[in-house]
């Protein structure tokens, strides 16, 4: 049986419990939701660990496995934000994303052909940092959209179902800001490790054309740097220009949309040497 079904099922349950919590706002239900999600991520980590042992490196080089790892990191990142702000109302928005994405490895369990080049601890660190960064940016984008939603509700004096259940603008802004900071730190670290590792790997495999061709001009590398610049600006704008609140929310939503579009373009239409399948 496809091992990804187990975390998928737990995420589905967590999503339902988060929805019940959102509607009924009973603290016990909220705590139950968090516990279920925590169990889900543990199960998921276990599944990924098994796959890692199978191919001897982080299982991310085929699409399905990469998505599975991404979902696990998304859930972890969300749990971190939830536990540090004690705000559980966002689960109902984040969990469906996790469930939707986790359906990919469930429906198309890919096969991973072991690639000796990736059998390095650096690869694991590089991929995990970058994926965690993107997962966190995805959450920041959702938080940004919700901020805008709550902002509009208050602005239009429409103080109904959503207004009552969504957190305060301040909390949404704080969560968003924290997500961007954490994401940026991981992105920076992941990129630095990538550069370091690429230099090392190039020396080890002088006949690998892909590795030798890797440069800043490569679309995937270029996009990564563009993303880094974008989120660096976002941090600068928040800290120095005082762009929090609505502008910060916009920035994280638009930023992630740009990242997503670029990634789709890179992986579908452009030639990149940054591929190891």
């Amino acid at each position, binding site marked *: 049986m496809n091992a990804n079904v187990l975390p998928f099922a737990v995420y589905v349950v967590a999503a339902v419990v988060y929805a019940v919590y959102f509607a009924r706002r*009973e603290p016990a239900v909220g705590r139950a939701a968090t516990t279920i999600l925590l169990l889900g991520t543990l199960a998921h980590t276990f599944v990924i660990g098994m796959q890692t042992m199978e191919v001897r490196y982080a299982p991310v080089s085929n699409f399905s496995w990469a998505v599975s790892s991404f979902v696990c990191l998304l859930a972890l990142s969300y749990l971190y934000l939830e536990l540090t702000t004690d705000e559980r109302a966002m689960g109902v928005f984040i969990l469906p994303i996790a469930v939707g994405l986790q359906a990919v490895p469930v429906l198309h369990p890919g096969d991973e052909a072991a690639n000796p080049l990736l059998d390095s601890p650096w690869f694991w660190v590089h991929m995990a940092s970058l994926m965690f960064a993107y997962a966190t940016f995805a959450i920041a984008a959702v938080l940004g959209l919700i901020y805008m939603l*709550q*902002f509009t509700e*208050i*602005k239009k*004096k429409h*103080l109904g179902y959503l*207004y*009552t259940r969504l*957190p*305060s*603008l*301040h*909390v949404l802004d*704080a969560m968003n800001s924290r997500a961007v900071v954490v994401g940026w730190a991981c992105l920076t670290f992941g990129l630095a490790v990538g550069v370091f590792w690429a230099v090392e790997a190039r020396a080890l495999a002088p006949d690998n054309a892909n590795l030798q061709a890797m440069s800043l001009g490569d679309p995937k590398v270029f996009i990564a740097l563009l993303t880094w610049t974008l989120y660096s600006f976002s941090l600068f704008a*928040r800290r120095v220009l*005082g*762009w*929090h*609140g*609505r*502008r*910060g929310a916009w920035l994280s939503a638009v930023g992630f949309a740009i990242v997503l579009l670029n990634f789709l373009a890179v992986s579908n239409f452009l030639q990149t040497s940054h591929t190891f399948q």
Partner: protein
Amino acid sequence: MHFFLLGLSHKTAPVDLRERLDFASRDLGAAVEALATRPSAAESVVLSTCNRSEIYVASSDPERAREEITAFLSEYHALPASSFTPHVFTHDDEAAVRHLFRVAAGLDSLVVGEPQILGQVKEAYHAAADRRCTGPMLTKLFHWSFVVGKRVRAETGLGEGAVSISFAAVALARKIFGRLDGRRALIVGAGEISTLTAQHLRRQGVGTIAITSRTAAHAETLAAEVDGAVVPWDGLGEALGRADIVVTATGSQRPILTRAQVEAVTRRRGDPLFIIDVAVPRDVEASVGEIEQAFLYNVDDLQAIVHENLSRRSSEVERAEAIVSEELARFLAWRRSRAAVPTVVALRQRFDRIRRAELQRLEAKLTHLTPEDRARVDEVTRLIVEKLLIEPTEQLKDLPDEETQIAYTEAINRVFRLREGEPSPMPGDSAAEATPADPHDT
């Protein structure tokens, strides 16, 4: 032991009488202590808020308690009893318990579901408990009422949503700024609503409150009350630049905050500016609401919120009443099970006496047994008695109502001759028809 309640509330007495019979402004502990010197009110709690003065007692003689409490009220407040007795209500036992549960749940409040009442009930209980004026019955009753209050709050929307303009304003501020500590409020004009709002803001821990008014004296009075700082009237523009929350309530005929003024201060800020205009005519130009970073709410907007919340609360009343009834039933069941205790104890003692007497009678025939075997015999007989008693004990503690309970208790008392000093009933002996012991007299 019976519960008895005597009180008056916004439903039965006019405000001037409630004021004269108020305990809250005086020392509640001293009052309950003075009351407890009367024999029928030795176990008592005095609950006093601006909308009610109620005295709860656990007494074996409710009729006497009524007289003594009335006399106490009259003496303590130096009022002739005739001035308040027509406005007083009383409840016994089940009705008294239900009343307290409804009060703690906020169902009996002037504004249904208002949040303070549960705290006031707790205070009333602690004032009495601290002076040792509460016994096991009232302690259990009041703790049960706290549970009812909490359940209603957690499981229904009865206490949800602000139902006054000033609360609605503060609730909105919290939805915008989260916790209010560190936030700066500016009060423009010291009217009734702005004063109430300032007080709520202070209670919510707002960082600073700046107050400005055309009449400096008004500003100073309010500033003293809410620990705020007075800002001169011509410093309004500057104070606006520093504020997160602005409350305007002047009697001005023309707007005192224009779009240009607000735009100038919001351009530089990341956080939104929340303006509450409770003045009529309005103090803030309506177009200020169009500024991206400004939330503008006027008195009609807040009134609309209050209306909506009130109607939502009234739809929750039924669910809250259901919780009260459920807890009342549980409480009464607990009380019945407690009332069964003396009979159960007497029954056990009786059985155990018989067991020991029989063992003693057999003593001479059991001399050949080793000490271990004797201990075993003792153990086995004890277990038999225990097992025989399990079912009757459970049944006695779990009877559906008080009448059945009295009947069962009496039957057991007779069947096992549990009353002490009772001669063995012979046919036609009238002693066995003695009045049954009150099951509550514990």
